[in-house]
């Protein structure tokens, strides 16, 4: 079932367009990961999805109904979505009162509030902190209480803006586990943004990539900064991350970044290092299996991710540590 449907959404701050999305569909009950560099428009998109700000243009439907961004309607919508911001805010009072805030607004009795708060804190393993001063908790504890506070309100969606960016590794794992548990046990849809592509692709059912306010398919992998370094006949020479040179029959104008489609990078058989085209040699450092795909991480002058079908994998049978050659043709290149 479709939860959100966004069409022709844009957001403008001053003269700068920070978001420009043609179409986006978010499905109910899934975890959606949103990847992208700083300033890509992730927080703006999350604020729009959380009904905290209205887009400049475009149309949004939530559970099949067109969203009316007038103040009167927004409050009802906000009660179905909770946004957990990058730097979570706890009111300067106890954990209990922080948790009770949203429940009180929704008219829960004192007894019900107590029961829900106990249950939610229990789930995140923070029940013993119920009387603690919330603003004095550590980063990891704060994130867990913030998730419990969101969970207590039984929303349809929890939107987490970089929930693991300011916590230690142990807390990161705990938070990721919690998000998965919340999604699986409670059926709450989760949208999370992150810089960590491995963490996000491991957790999310669907991954979206945002750059310069635009959505791209892929998982924020194989994205490189490029510059034009010369011309050879009809082709242009590009330098990737100042380390690898590609010869491509295209012009990227003033754009500074390209994405190499992991499905379109061709794995060559051993012994084909002199084949024509842009060749790259490297060692396989990671192999992981998805539902219908095999993901290879190749270390050469740059780190490259390749996606193979099981058939392709069995044809080549690359192993961890083995040397392989890949060919990057122009149809694998998207200019960002």
């Amino acid at each position: 079932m479709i939860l959100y449907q966004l069409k022709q959404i844009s957001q403008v701050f001053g003269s700068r367009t920070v978001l420009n999305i043609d179409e986006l569909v978010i499905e109910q009950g899934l975890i959606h990961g949103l990847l992208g560099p700083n300033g890509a428009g992730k927080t703006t998109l999350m604020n729009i999805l959380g009904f905290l700000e209205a887009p400049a243009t475009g149309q949004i439907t939530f559970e099949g109904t067109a969203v009316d961004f007038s103040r009167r309607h927004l409050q009802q919508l906000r009660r179905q979505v909770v946004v957990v911001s990058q730097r979570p805010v706890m009111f300067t009072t106890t954990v209990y009162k922080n948790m009770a805030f949203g429940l009180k607004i929704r008219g829960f009795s004192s007894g019900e509030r107590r029961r829900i708060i106990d249950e939610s804190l229990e789930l995140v393993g923070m029940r013993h902190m119920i009387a603690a001063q919330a603003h004095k908790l550590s980063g990891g504890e704060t994130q867990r209480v913030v998730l419990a506070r969101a969970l207590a309100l039984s929303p349809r969606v929890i939107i987490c803006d970089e929930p693991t960016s300011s916590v230690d590794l142990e807390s990161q794992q705990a938070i990721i586990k919690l998000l998965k548990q919340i999604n699986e046990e409670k059926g709450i849809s989760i949208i999370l943004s992150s810089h960590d592509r491995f963490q996000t692709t491991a957790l999310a059912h669907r991954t979206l990539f945002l750059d310069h306010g635009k959505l791209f398919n892929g998982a924020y992998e194989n994205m490189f900064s490029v510059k034009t370094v010369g011309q050879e006949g009809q082709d242009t020479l590009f330098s990737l991350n100042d380390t690898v040179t590609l010869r491509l029959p295209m012009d990227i104008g003033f754009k500074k970044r390209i994405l190499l489609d992991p499905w379109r990078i061709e794995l060559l058989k051993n012994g084909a290092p002199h084949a024509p085209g842009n060749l790259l040699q490297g060692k396989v450092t990671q192999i992981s299996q998805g539902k219908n795909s095999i993901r290879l991480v190749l270390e050469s002058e740059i780190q490259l991710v390749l996606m193979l079908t099981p058939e392709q994998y069995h044809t080549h049978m690359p192993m961890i540590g083995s040397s392989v050659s890949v060919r990057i043709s122009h149809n694998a290149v998207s200019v960002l």
Partner: protein
Amino acid sequence: MGFFTDSLLSALDLVWSMDRELVEIVTVSLKVSAGSTLLSACFGIPFGFLVSFNTFRGKRLLITCLNTMLAFPTVAIGLFVYAFISRRAILGVFDLLYTQEAIVIGQTILIFPVVATFTISSISQIDQGYRKTAMTLGANGWQTAAVIFREARFGIAAAVIAAFGRVISEVGISMMLGGNAKGFTRTITTAMALEYDKGEFVLAIALGIILISLSFSINILFHFVQGRGKE
């Protein structure tokens, strides 16, 4: 030196013995200062809150004007209020001149910018995240405002304390609008000025001791409240 020591000892004796005239002057001072502080808080806090909470054209200009008003001399405010409440003025029928109410009006005008600017500053320092958090947890406009107010409470309390500190020690408005009438409008500062004119230093020094003690206590309270806010 002997003159100063004698005067100081006599002043301390006056304070210790709770001299009737001294108590009367201090009571009037506290009464008018508390009244004007209360009134300025009633107007200044909501005003500061509205200015800070909303975005509108001319907001920066308004804040600049308020900041300028912080430096208004008390005698200028005294003169301004006098122009409205003197017998022949527009509010003359209310017979306010040389009353405690007149002092309260003048002092309220004096400290309204203090309360308003401190409130604006306190609320501006509150992270936007509080507003966003309250909204995403389902709060309406009023409930969100209540959250912001609660988070800024120490800063706002400090604004009120600072305003009280300003009025308890002012002399221009009390003298011009109160008239320094014994038992009615004589405040600590106007009494000190009068006693100095008369060459009677004992009461002046006794009042000075009380005024400095009050200012010191207010400052301690101010720093305590500000410190709580930073915890």
